[in-house]
């Protein structure tokens, strides 16, 4: 896919490579790089996924990184069915119907 100048895109960049990371963090975290994601309007005339590009962020900063997505969108949702939760309301309503008891 090719993005044109002015397209809204998402970029990715390595901030700290393995070896540059803080020594005071767990080993599993030290063994992976510190990565960054940001979004902006493409400054380059055209670019393909994987290219190093410049973007102008929504507030107007210039940021460089690898083009990873064109017209990025959010796809988080309400999850899948969680049947484990279904007893809660029915049980509570039953308990409330029984009324208050101090015994």
């Amino acid at each position, binding site marked *: 896919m090719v993005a044109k100048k002015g397209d809204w895109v998402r970029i990715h960049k390595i*901030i*700290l490579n393995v070896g*540059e*990371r*803080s020594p*005071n*963090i*767990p080993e*599993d*975290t030290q063994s*992976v*790089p*510190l*990565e*960054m*994601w*940001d*979004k902006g309007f493409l400054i380059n005339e055209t670019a393909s996924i994987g290219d190093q590009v410049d973007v102008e*962020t*929504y*507030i*107007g*900063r210039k940021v460089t990184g690898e083009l990873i997505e064109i017209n990025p969108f*959010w796809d*988080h*949702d*309400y*999850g*899948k*069915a*969680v049947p*484990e*939760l279904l*007893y*809660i*309301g029915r*049980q*509570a*309503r039953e*308990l*409330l119907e*029984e009324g*208050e*008891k*101090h015994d």
Partner: protein
Amino acid sequence: MTKDRSLSAVMSRKLEIMKSSVGIDYDIFESGRIAFDYERMMKETGYSLQEIEEIQKETTVGNTPLYELRNITKLARKYAKPGKGARIFLKDEASNPSGSFKARRAATAVYHAQKLGYKGVIAATSGNYGAAVASQAAMRGLKCIIVQECYDSKGKGQPEIIEKARACEAYGAEVVQLSVGPELFYSFLLLLEETGFFNASLYTPFGIAGVETLGYEISMQFREKEGRDPDAVVVTNAGGGNLTGTARGLIKAGALDTTVIGASVSLSGLHMASDEQFNKKSFTTGHTGFGIPFATWPDRSDVPRSAARPLRYMDRYLTVNQGSVFYMTELLAQVEGLERGPAGNTALAVAFVLSQEMDEDQIVVVQETEYTGAGKHINPQLTFAKENGIKILKGNPANEVPGENIILPEDPGMLCVEELDIEKTKKSYIRNSIKNSEVETVNREDLDFLVADTKSNESFVRDALEELGVKVETEE
């Protein structure tokens, strides 16, 4: 000349960057030892309660409704001894612009930034504070950058954090998302340096003063409704600002007999800076992974001296498991008709248990709720937990192992809390104070400061110091 952008070089410029980005010279409050003049800092760099009320009114922050949770109270009484079961109330902070109490903190920080002539604001937060700052910045016409710790090294992110990124963008902010690690602070410093924007830290005096109106309002609302102050206020505790600000507001209202109780989700055993464990937790805030480190060393924050000092105000600190908070979130929707986000219900789960040990004519207040939406809701959060190998079980919540399972209480009577040994927490704080200030002896001023900062007394602090082998300088 271009400045050195290496991790060590940027970290060594930390104080200089902080000073120009918050506009506070913290040095003037320092004694050069353990003690610093907290109240002077709050007074000289903060705002009076009346001024804050005015500032918050400009953007319609605060004056949130108070609900009595009659059905949840009834359920608590079913499991309480005769005569027990305090009335449970809820302060619906979700009705603030941006959907959480964080609007109070952001309102003052963004107002202050505008007053000082900053063109934009930056905040490092994966929580509701990001949306709050972005929303306030939109109202005041300032630019906004939110820096989030969002994804693990596989690019997987907590649905709750992703939703907050979306909300920030909705308010016109730039969202810089990072993978796991405390070096977020490094990126944050670089952004402050590059943009010259205001550091809308959660821990400045104006941020904390912004929460004082919450405590004050609680007292005023109860005096009007019930003719008296509540007996206990339960506060979800992470960085300590919510608790500090609320408690200070209660004190300013004269509600001196109201007990202030901290509540956190227990995530014991999970390391907060671990890439592998990042997505094993099902709460991204209000948990012990922030609550305990920030209580025992508040000055670990992104400003030299934190205005959030929870041990100064906390009477008790109770923890609850993840399953109980999800349970209460479902219960709140099902029997009270209020659908709210899970993280805000940590204090509610604690209040439900606490109510059962209090008298039935007493009042316990849960002082916040947060908005709910895609990602930030029990269904996606539990779906995400399952996808990360966490088992969702029904049973005794006391048996939950964070990172392995989430145990929903089998019935309301199974909800339980764990009381943290607050004296031990206070002693850890004293130990950290000695360690970080690198003093060998403690003087009168330090001693008084430690007493105030731990809400204790002189003999408690003297005993703690003796255990550490630290001498108190004899007075002339």
